[in-house]
């Protein structure tokens, strides 16, 4: 790469062993980078100029790889990272292919999966990522950079120094990206903020040692906001989430169905809620016990009475599911198998009948118990 391409380097980004380097360059012309990312379509079709440039530069052999993948696994799915050799782009060890997501909520997951693949599975030390979706998909740079920052913050247990390059050949976009990153690290208190320094929303006194939050821009005394974050990592004014209040439940689904039957112990007029959880197998992320290793998925069904108590529990379970708190990866208590998706201390009734001994109904105190277990996780 040319020295002039290097726009900025953030060393020890988010206090980890990470150098984050912003480059105004073409992703096919880098050096000293282990792998680059190709954002493509489900059949590796060229949606944007960058993807086309990568494929052309890698040469015809990579087309055969694409074909092989599609015939073996079908379309490349959103969130899946597929690695191939770089062929003619032989300054790189790998090219990581992902599908440009339809919605911005997938961005963080895609960046996380890319980092897991690169640093944990392939054991590489550097990666060049584009601003995913800011090309043809016209997604806001802000969404993209914030997702990137969040996925970097989730990177844990790094044993070596790693380098993440953000590469884009549009100078305006790279400038915007840089501003977002700088503001994230050290939000500036500017003229517009002057009147906010009169009263800290927490102590209601003059702001002392002002601290501006990097996502929402609200200002507090440093000591006040530190105390507040100890209780809950959200902005006290707008509830913007800052910390990782979430669990490490892997990607999965939760579906609800109403069954026309009554659980033992309930009035005949009360029918039943059936919850189905599905977790496909996958690769453990940095916040799991064995990053890079595979985990075994699971499928579970649970039952609740469809009355006010049951609906209340269901609502809280849905909230806990969103917060990634219902399941975790570890050793199964029933089979002793390791690296499996297991319950995370919030008990479910997995049988309709048989009583407490068989994880079923009737069980008078179940609702109270599960509410207490949810409350222990901060869900109430």
């Amino acid at each position, binding site marked *: 790469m040319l020295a002039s391409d290097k726009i900025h380097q953030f060393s020890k980004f988010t206090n980890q062993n990470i150098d984050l380097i912003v480059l105004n360059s073409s992703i096919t012309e880098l050096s000293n980078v282990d792998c680059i990312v190709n954002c493509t379509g489900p059949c590796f079709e060229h949606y944007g100029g960058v993807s086309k440039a990568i494929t052309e530069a890698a040469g015809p052999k990579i087309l055969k790889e694409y074909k092989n993948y599609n015939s073996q696994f079908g379309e490349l799915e959103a969130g899946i990272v597929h690695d191939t050799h770089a062929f003619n782009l032989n300054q790189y060890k790998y090219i990581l292919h992902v599908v440009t997501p339809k919605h911005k909520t997938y961005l963080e997951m895609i960046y996380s999966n890319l980092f897991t693949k690169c640093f944990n599975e392939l054991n590489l030390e550097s990666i060049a990522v584009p601003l995913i979706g800011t090309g043809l998909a016209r997604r806001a740079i802000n969404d993209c950079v914030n997702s990137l920052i969040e996925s970097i913050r989730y990177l844990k247990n790094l044993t070596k120094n790693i380098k993440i390059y953000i590469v884009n050949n549009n100078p305006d976009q790279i400038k915007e990206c840089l501003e977002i990153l700088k503001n994230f690290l050290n939000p500036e208190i500017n003229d517009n903020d002057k009147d906010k320094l009169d009263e800290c*929303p*927490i*102590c*209601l*006194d003059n702001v002392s040692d002002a601290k501006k939050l990097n996502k929402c821009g609200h200002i507090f005394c440093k000591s*006040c906001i530190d*105390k*507040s974050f*100890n*209780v*809950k990592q*959200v*902005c*006290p*004014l*707008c*509830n913007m989430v800052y910390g990782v209040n979430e669990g490490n439940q892997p990607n999965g689904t939760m579906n609800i169905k109403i069954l026309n039957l009554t659980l033992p112990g309930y009035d005949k007029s009360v029918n039943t809620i059936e919850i189905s959880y599905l977790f496909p197998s996958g690769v453990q992320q940095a916040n799991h016990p064995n990053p890079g290793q595979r985990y075994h998925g699971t499928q579970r069904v649970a039952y609740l009475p469809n009355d*006010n108590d049951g609906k209340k529990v269901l609502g809280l379970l849905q909230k806990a599911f969103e917060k990634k708190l219902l399941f975790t990866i570890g050793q199964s208590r029933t089979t002793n198998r390791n690296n499996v998706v297991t319950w995370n201390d919030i008990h479910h009734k997995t049988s309709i009948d048989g009583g407490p001994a068989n994880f079923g109904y009737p069980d008078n105190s179940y609702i109270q118990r599960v509410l207490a277990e949810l409350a222990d996780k*901060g*869900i*109430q």
Partner: protein
Amino acid sequence: MVSIATARIKREFKEVVTSDELTKCKIKLELLNDNFTELKGEIGGPPDTPYEGGTYQLEIKIPETYPFNPPKVRFLTKIWHPNISSVTGAICLDILKDQWAAAMTLRTVLLSLQALLATPEPDDPQDAVVANQYKTNNKIFVKTARHWTNIYAGSTLAAEPEFDSKVKQLIDMGFDNHKSRVALSSHLWNVEHAIESLYN
């Protein structure tokens, strides 16, 4: 050193008692002890609601971790409302639970409670019986709520005298005054059903 909790309550107390806007909304606040941990709130029932004309007393307890955790608030005045327990006065309101934010104040809480009286949320009930009645028998709900406002919250508006005679009927049978009123309110003022529930 004065804790944040104490310093905050001092300021918030002043903010409420000196606010003309809040006086106009019939909102009051009273300190119950010197260390600013227990207060009594008062809100007027909002106009054009069954609570109009009523005055509601609130118990407010300030936790040590205030304002990082919400104040504990419950209704001392009995009220017939989907989000407030007719038995204990416990309140189901998101900002008093997980949606609390440290920048909220007693002023926010009192105004939110007044707003809750004007716009109940029956799908997130504290009192399931009341919520069900609100949804399926709204006319009776309104009459019952107004009756409770008259009996417990000091309103002088429409008293529903036939409700009173039904309560008296049950008292004459030896049942407790308030229990009789709850039973009748819960059973759409059907005397037989109310008696049945009191015997169970």
